[in-house]
């Protein structure tokens, strides 16, 4: 009601063109913010989930740590590529630039976690503690999704919190379960939440 009341109160005269510019800026801002509801690609999440389950199955049969790490590194690169392609497709479908404000914010929020995960993986590998990486990856990915999801619909940070729970569970369960946790997290969670996003947030 505050907005309606203030509209009736005579205010200081504003030049017509300034008012028009302000209105155009408001439209632009609203459209960018409204894009938050569609920026994250649900279908991309489902495909990423499917490739993660395949990667977990494939990695689990690798005996050497290097081979295991190589499988998950390829999966990580593949996941980023799938996410990018689906996000671009989704942005195109609504005539929006991929890196409009919501997309930019999401990338900036998740990037530090991804960088930290890569660095810690290298450290753990050099220290001969590669078996701890599943928990670390899930936790850091969860942190990134929670941070990025702060600018998005509620389902996104909820997915991030689920990753945190899975990551914590992975750290405190037998190390041999690592691939199962990765399949459940990067596979299961992304498929489930991807489906929710497809159903409710435009694909």
């Amino acid at each position, binding site marked *: 009601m505050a*907005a309606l009341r203030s*509209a009736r109160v005579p205010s200081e005269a504003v030049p*017509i063109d300034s008012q028009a510019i302000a209105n*155009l800026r408001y*439209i632009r801002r*609203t459209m960018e913010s*409204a*894009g938050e509801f569609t920026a994250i690609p649900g279908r991309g999440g489902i495909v990423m989930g499917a490739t993660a389950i395949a990667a977990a199955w494939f990695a689990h049969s690798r005996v050497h740590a290097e081979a295991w790490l190589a499988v998950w590194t390829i999966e990580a690169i593949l996941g980023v590529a799938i996410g990018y392609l689906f996000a671009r497709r989704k942005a195109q479908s*609504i005539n*929006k630039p991929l890196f409009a404000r919501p997309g930019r914010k999401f990338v900036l929020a998740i990037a530090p976690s991804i960088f930290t995960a890569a660095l810690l993986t290298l450290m753990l590998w050099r220290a001969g503690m590669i078996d701890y990486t599943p928990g670390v990856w899930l936790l850091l990915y969860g942190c990134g999704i929670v941070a990025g999801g702060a600018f998005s619909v509620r389902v996104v940070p909820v997915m991030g919190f689920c990753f945190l729970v899975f990551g914590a569970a992975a750290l405190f369960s037998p190390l041999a379960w690592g691939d199962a946790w990765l399949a459940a997290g990067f596979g299961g969670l992304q498929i489930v939440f991807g489906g929710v996003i497809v159903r409710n947030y435009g694909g």
Partner: protein
Amino acid sequence: MGKNATLAKDETAPLKSPLRPEKAAARIDRLVHERLRLGIMSALAVNASLTFNELKKLLETTDGNLSVHARKLEEAGYISCSKSFDGRMPRTEYKLSAGGRKALERYLDHMETLIRATRQS
């Protein structure tokens, strides 16, 4: 279509540039011009559909305010509204109609013309 639709139709005839700023301002679609209604239409322009709660969160407004302005746009045929149930929860979903999209485009043209006309005068 309500009385607003007639009002909007009269006021949104195509512009013949160049116009004097006062004339351009007088021809603005007042139905779209109101800030919250402009927000609703802008948000729906970049989404296939949005629910009542999503619009409320996005535009940071109250239930009453949003429903009043959404109703006006609906009566003018600028947006469509469908009601359903998501489990036990009622769900109201809005979509921008073809007429609404045209009205928003016309409004944007008006704003640009207005800025041009003011700067040229």
